[in-house]
């Protein structure tokens, strides 16, 4: 029997802050649930529960690589300012389902034994929602690009639009004038021919890598089509490698 969507964990993609750690990670977990609160009253003979607050955690395990993200992981532990994280469970093509949130690092552990590969465990909690999202832009951008519009839906009056940006590489070495601007637009149709509205603008990225968690945009927004616009400028062949996702919750 063929089970639609059943898949092995092979192409899982993970961005944490300005790092793509997929290449050093070999296990990941995003526990998600709600606290079960006892709701027993006289007259019943069976334990009864009521759901309380949602709980979310994150944990990545992999092979220790001092050159990739070690310093970044180390500095994040205990940092009161959360960093954006994006996890793509199955695949990381534009349009794929991802999960985004702003994470606080509670644990970074490096372990190893004689003649064994050194491993790391990096994990913690969220200071935002864990938002089911769609990967809207991914790749190395050499020129300005209007990414594919996708129908993600409207934002109700009780919902917010969330977005995470990870810039993992930049060609700017600090001496050029290269810039990368990423904005989020919405429209009532797939046209984006002048009637679109800018819903969010990330802070301009210049040198080095960067990551940003867009301040959530409150509904109501009746537009159902969304896209990411990447604007590249500067001399000496600028390029920026990034991933950007949008979610509504």
């Amino acid at each position, binding site marked *: *029997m063929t*089970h*639609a*969507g*059943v*898949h*092995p*964990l*092979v192409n*899982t993609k993970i961005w944490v802050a300005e790092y793509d750690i997929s290449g050093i*990670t*070999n*296990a*990941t*977990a*995003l*526990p*998600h*649930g*709600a606290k*079960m609160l006892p709701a*027993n009253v006289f007259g*019943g*003979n*069976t*334990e*009864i*529960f*009521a*759901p*309380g*607050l*949602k*709980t979310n955690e994150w944990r990545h*395990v992999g092979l220790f690589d001092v050159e990739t993200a070690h310093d970044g992981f180390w500095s994040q532990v205990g940092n009161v300012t959360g960093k954006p994280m994006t*996890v793509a*469970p*199955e695949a990381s093509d534009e349009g794929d*389902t991802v*999960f985004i949130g702003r994470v606080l690092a509670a644990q970074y552990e490096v372990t190893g034994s004689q003649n064994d590969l050194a491993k790391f465990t990096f994990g913690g909690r969220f200071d935002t929602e*864990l938002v*089911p999202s769609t990967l809207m832009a991914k790749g190395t951008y050499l020129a300005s690009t209007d990414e594919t519009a996708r129908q993600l839906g409207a934002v109700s009056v009780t919902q917010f639009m969330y977005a995470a940006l990870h810039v993992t590489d930049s060609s700017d070495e600090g001496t050029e004038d290269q810039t990368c601007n990423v904005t989020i637009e919405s429209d009532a149709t797939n046209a984006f021919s002048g009637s679109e509205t800018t819903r969010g603008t990330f802070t301009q990225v210049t040198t080095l890598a960067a990551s940003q968690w867009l301040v959530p945009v409150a509904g109501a927004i009746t537009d159902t089509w969304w896209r990411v616009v990447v604007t590249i400028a500067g001399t000496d062949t600028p390029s920026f490698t990034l991933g950007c996702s949008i979610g509504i919750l």
Partner: protein
Amino acid sequence: MAQTYPSIWYDAYVYINSVDLSDFAFSVAFPYGAKMLARDTFGVTTERFMPGLITWSVTVQFFQTFEAAKVYATIYPLIGPAVAAFPIAIRPNKTDAIGATNPEFQMNAHCESMPIIDGGHGESATVPAVFRSAGAITVDTTP
């Protein structure tokens, strides 16, 4: 074929909030019991208990999938505060009719947890979904 002893579960029925997820489930744990309340008093040398409230939970191991109307799409919306209880049902054999040797356990539940993802490279994407009691169990043996 009706379940007989010894029985091998190969066609269990898993029903979550009006969705048959049997095709994605490969393990069910359904502990059922009663809280044991100590009632020791002076003069006895052996622990004594009395049964309190009945307790139960259901843990189903699923192959995770993000397809519409499947595991994630069905269970994720059931997690959170103020989410109303929903019906779940478990029985040993999906194909056979409900009966004395194929009872269906029907109850209302809340979902305590289901990881979005939890596994290692190269492993099957599987997740345990844990359901807690929102009411008593009804054991249906009527075909």
